[in-house]
Every structure is written in structure tokens, then in C-alpha cells.
């Protein structure tokens, strides 16, 4: 690969605080200029193998094994896909609201984890801080109360998931056409007791994020910034909706590329490119082609794309953020953090609304209709839009499965951010320091990628960095154990 080219190659392998087996390669020419950057996925995942040959009703349970980081997203997206297969066009209010509660619980805990555990060490201590400090324990030491709230926010979200999905591993709450349980009064009251505290902590987390960013606003708006298209689902009226909606894509300037696209039509609008050096595909908008059609997904794209948010506190925050760009899309990678915290607040508000809705105690849980052989659905997972597409045979077995996961949708943007940061920070440097390497990782982490889906056997090497010259010799090596 790049060792054939004159110059030296920097390899970050794998990326820390990013899930799984990712690797960054930065090839410098003989003058030290960045010649090429790549963000690799070095393990073939074969998602579709999990699903093909299985009965469609097994999918909501099986697909959770694809990812130990966001099993709820796969669980719900598979359930929505099988809704289409069983002809359940409209769920009962109890089923839909239980699923939404599960999803907002998932988003709350996922965004809390990312901000406090993965992102805040960088924001609080700086990109050059010692690696020993740049972690959650460092945050605890610096601000124990905030860190403790982060842990308890996570716990609250996880408990919501447990109450709605049934259990942590292989949750069975969502099933084709509905849900298999409602929320009891006892369960509801447990969550209601703490929801105002959770809401307050979400506000505080957002304020902390804003305070840090505003202190260095120009820096954060320019760090790893690049123009891109933005893709997400929105409600029919343009409102932010993390659970269901129609697909919208905007340009970097905010012009609509397409809007109100239904799930079953996704292949008319989205295509995927395979590149020989990565196992992860590169999706793009068909009408714009491979070169110009790639897009961002996730919190930043969602906030950029929606017209408004239907919860008051989050909507106020959205307006404040969007005023920075005069209402046009923000194309700064670090704005992911701010938008992620707006969504965390939105999720807390939604959870409160749902807990006060008596539909959660309803007993009509399942909808049935005319069976179809094809199902396509999407959901806004914490990291971005997630697509599931199944086709079944006469025996109800899935014979075709196509999944586009959030991190795959953000593949090209993550490559772009590595490229931008390498050019901004590594150009001409004679020594590759921890701080410089972390700068690259900070950019990738903004997208909260989930690369490999959860093999956590003991003994994996967390980080290995090599600098290789044009002769293929290792001239610099850095490992974190």
C-alpha cells in the first residue's frame, strides 16, 4: 500500500476511545507534507451474515449482537423493519410510546457516556494533556460532582432500557408489530421520581459544554472543520425526530438535496461505494455522485437538518446554536459535542413527557396487517442514521439483508477530518508527540464512531503507533499499554 510511495507513514492502530479495530495512516512525503490520509477499518464485520437465513421475527433479538455499544438501536430498527414485513403500518399508542421511551433512554445514556467519558477529558484538560489525565478518572478528580452525575445519567438511561427492553443482553421488548410489555405504574413512578434531576443534570452538562466551547469559540469552529452535506430523518413537519420520520438531505449551505423520502425508496437516493483499502463502505447521495455526495450523519446533521425541536428547552438551545451561523448548517466537527448535548436534553424532556402519558400503561400492544416480503426502516441512532433492509422467502426466512450503520454513514467525514487535522497540525513536524496523535483522535472521536461492535476479550492492545520511512523501516514507534 503506501509503503511503495516515497516518504514516511504514520500509523495509529487502533484509535483509542473509539470502538474496535480502527487504524489511522498518515503518509508524509520527503518534505514532511501530508500526502495521503486514511481511516481504515481493518476487520471485516459481515453484518448481513448474522441475519440471512434467520426467521424475520428473530431479527430484533439477533441484531443486537451486531453491536454491544448500541444494541437498542439495532433492536428497534430491526423491529421497525419487521413491522413493515408483518404489515403493521401504524403501531398502537402503547407500542410506539414504549419504543420511543426505550430509544430516548438509549440516546440519553449514550450521549452522556460520550460527552463525559470520551470527549470531556479532551475539552477539560486540553489535547496536549498527559494521557494519564485524559480519561474519566481525570474528570472525576477535576470535577467529582459533575462526573458522578455523568455516571448516574448513564445509569438512569440504562434502567429505562431495562424496563422497556426486558434485559440488557438480548432485550426482547420490541417485536414485529409492537412491543411485548407495557410500563407498570411501579416502574413509571421509579423513573418519575428522578426525572427532574436528570433533566437538571442534562441542562448542566449542556451548559458545561457551551462554556468550554464559547471560551475558545473560533478555535472550536475551525478545528477539523470542512463543508459537507447533511443527512437525517425528520418528522413530516420538519421537526427533529430520533425514532421515526422521512429522509432529508441538505448541502453545506442548507439547500435541500432531497426531502420526505420514504424508507422503502432509500436505494433510489443512497448508494454505497467499496474502496479496496477499507472494509467499511462509503455511502453517498446518488444524484451528487461519489465525489460530492458524501454526507455527515449524527447529532450535528440532525440539528442542522431539522426545522425545529418539539421540546422547549432543547428548541431554545437549538436556536442559540444555529444563530452562530445565521441559521445555516454548521460544518464544524467539534459542534457535534454541542449538538449531542442538545439531544441529551431533548431526550430527557421526551422521557418526562412520556412518563406522564398514560398510554404507557395501555394493554393493546400488537398491530397486525397484510404480510409483505420486503421491509426497510431507519432510526436515528445516537451516532446517526441507521438503515435496515430485509427481504424474506416463503418460509419467512430472511434471504437478503442490507444494513447501513451510523458509523458507515460517517465514514467519509471521518476520513476528511483526519485529512484536515493532519494538514493543520502534523505538517512538517519532526516529532510525532502524544498530543499530536491525540489531536487526530479528537477529530475522529467527535463523530463517536463505533467500529467493531464489541469484542472485549482480555488482552487486546489498545494503541500502537508506527512511523515508517520510504524503505519500510520503523523509525518511530509509540504504544499505549
Amino acid at each position, binding site marked *: 500500500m503506501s509503503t511503495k510511495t516515497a516518504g514516511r507513514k504514520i500509523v495509529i492502530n487502533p484509535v483509542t476511545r473509539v470502538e474496535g479495530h480502527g487504524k489511522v495512516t498518515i503518509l508524509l512525503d520527503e518534505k514532511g507534507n501530508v500526502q495521503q490520509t486514511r481511516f481504515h477499518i481493518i476487520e471485516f464485520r459481515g453484518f448481513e451474515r448474522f441475519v440471512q437465513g434467520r426467521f424475520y421475527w428473530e431479527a430484533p433479538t439477533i441484531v443486537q449482537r451486531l453491536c454491544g*455499544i448500541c444494541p437498542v438501536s439495532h433492536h428497534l430498527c430491526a423491529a421497525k423493519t419487521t413491522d413493515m414485513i408483518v404489515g403493521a403500518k401504524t403501531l398502537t399508542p402503547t407500542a410506539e410510546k414504549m419504543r420511543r421511551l426505550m430509544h430516548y433512554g438509549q440516546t440519553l445514556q449514550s450521549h452522556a457516556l460520550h460527552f463525559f467519558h470520551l470527549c470531556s477529558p479532551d475539552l477539560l484538560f486540553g489535547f496536549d494533556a498527559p494521557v494519564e489525565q485524559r480519561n474519566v478518572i481525570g474528570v472525576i478528580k477535576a470535577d467529582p460532582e459533575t462526573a458522578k452525575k455523568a455516571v448516574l445519567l448513564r445509569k438512569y438511561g440504562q434502567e429505562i432500557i431495562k424496563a422497556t427492553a426486558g434485559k440488557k443482553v438480548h432485550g426482547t421488548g420490541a417485536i414485529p408489530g409492537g412491543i411485548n410489555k407495557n410500563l407498570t405504574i411501579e416502574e413509571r413512578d421509579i423513573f418519575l421520581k428522578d426525572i427532574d434531576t436528570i433533566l437538571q443534570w442534562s441542562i448542566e452538562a449542556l451548559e458545561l459544554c457551551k462554556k468550554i466551547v464559547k471560551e475558545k469559540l473560533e478555535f472550536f469552529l475551525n478545528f477539523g472543520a470542512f463543508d459537507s452535506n447533511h443527512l437525517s430523518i425528520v418528522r413530516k413537519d420538519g421537526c427533529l425526530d430520533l425514532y421515526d420520520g422521512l429522509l432529508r438531505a441538505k448541502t453545506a449551505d442548507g439547500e435541500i438535496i432531497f426531502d420526505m423520502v420514504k424508507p422503502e425508496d432509500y436505494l433510489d437516493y443512497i448508494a454505497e461505494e467499496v474502496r479496496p483499502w477499507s472494509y467499511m463502505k462509503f455511502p453517498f447521495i446518488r444524484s451528487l455522485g461519489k465525489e460530492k455526495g458524501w454526507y455527515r450523519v449524527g447529532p450535528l446533521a440532525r440539528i442542522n437538518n431539522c426545522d425545529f425541536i418539539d421540546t422547549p428547552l432543547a428548541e431554545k438551545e437549538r436556536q442559540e446554536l444555529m444563530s452562530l451561523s445565521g441559521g445555516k448548517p454548521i460544518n464544524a466537527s467539534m459542534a457535534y459535542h454541542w449538538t449531542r448535548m442538545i439531544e441529551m436534553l431533548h431526550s430527557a424532556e421526551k422521557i418526562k413527557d412520556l412518563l406522564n402519558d398514560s398510554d404507557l400503561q395501555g394493554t393493546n400492544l400488537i398491530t397486525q396487517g397484510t404480510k409483505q416480503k420486503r421491509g426497510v426502516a431507519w432510526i436515528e441512532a445516537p451516532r446517526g442514521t441507521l438503515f435496515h433492509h430485509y427481504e424474506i422467502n416463503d418460509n419467512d426466512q430472511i434471504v437478503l439483508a442490507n444494513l447501513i450503520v451510523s458509523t458507515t454513514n460517517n465514514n467519509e467525514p471521518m476520513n476528511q477530518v483526519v485529512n484536515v487535522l493532519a494538514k493543520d497540525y502534523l505538517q512538517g513536524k519532526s516529532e510525532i508527540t502524544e498530543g499530536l496523535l491525540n489531536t487526530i483522535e479528537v477529530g475522529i472521536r467527535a463523530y463517536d464512531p463505533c467500529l467493531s461492535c464489541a*469484542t472485549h476479550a482480555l488482552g487486546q492492545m489498545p494503541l500502537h503507533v508506527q512511523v515508517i520511512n520510504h524503505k519500510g523501516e520503523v523509525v518511530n514507534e509509540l504504544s499505549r499499554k
Partner: protein
Amino acid sequence: MNLVENDKILIFGYGNPGRHDDALGSLFIQRVQQSNFKNVYADADYQLNIELGAELTNYDKVIFVDALREGEEPFCLTRVFPSKNITFTTHSINAESILAICEEYFGSAPETWMLGIKGYDFTIGEGITDKSQKNLEIAWQYLNKILNQQRRREHGTKESYSYY
């Protein structure tokens, strides 16, 4: 490992059952749950998460169970201590860090052990390998013996059992 009478014990297995031998942790937990030991609580997840730091304080002893990628067959039982010098942080978190969070928040972390059961295949797919199945059996027999020993003590038997 010495288990004292009336110790409240958490056995927590983790790993992804969709990754062949990475299922060892959750399979082990199924055994524990079927055995119904007094004062022994079992739970499983795909991975360790930071909120466990708030949970551990409720227990006297904790045993994490995970698949072992590199290490001795059939299993390895090691004491785990809090580590504030975290350099391995992903979406998941390691046991040492969980203990450190527990210690930072609550002043002390429970005595904790890691039971690593040797696995061989961590690629995508269901079912564990024959070799790791044997390792699971041996590890289970070992811990089962310890837990049974504790149960007998609770019924008046004075003998004790220790290992490592």
C-alpha cells in the same frame, strides 16, 4: 480467594454472544443464575460500563468473568485492583477503571477478581468452540466448588477453601 460467610457477591459476565468465544462471560452467568446460590447475584452485559462503578459498592466481593484472548488455559483467576492510571478507554471500560470510579466516589472498592476463561475464536458468529467449552466447564466447576463451600459454611461447616 476467600469467601467469608454471608459475603454478598456479584458475579458479572461480559462479552458479545455474537462473537463466538466472546460469549464465555454470559454463558458462565447463565450457570450461576441456574444454581441459585444464596447471597450471590449474577448479571451480564455486552461490556463493562461506567455506571457499574456506582453498583459495586453494594457488594462485598465481585467476580468479573470475561473471555481471555491471551493467557493460560483453561482459565485464569486474578485479583483486580483499582487503577487510576487509565490508558485504555473506549466506549467500554476495563475492570480496574470501574474499581477506580467506585473508589473515587465511595471511598472504597470491594475485593474484586477477574475470571478470564481462555477463548480462541472471536470472529462474528454464534456458538463457542469445543476447546473453550471445555475451559468453561473447568472454570465453572472451580467456582461452583468455592461457592458451594461458602454455602456449607453458612450451614455450620467450619472448613474453608482458598485459592491463589
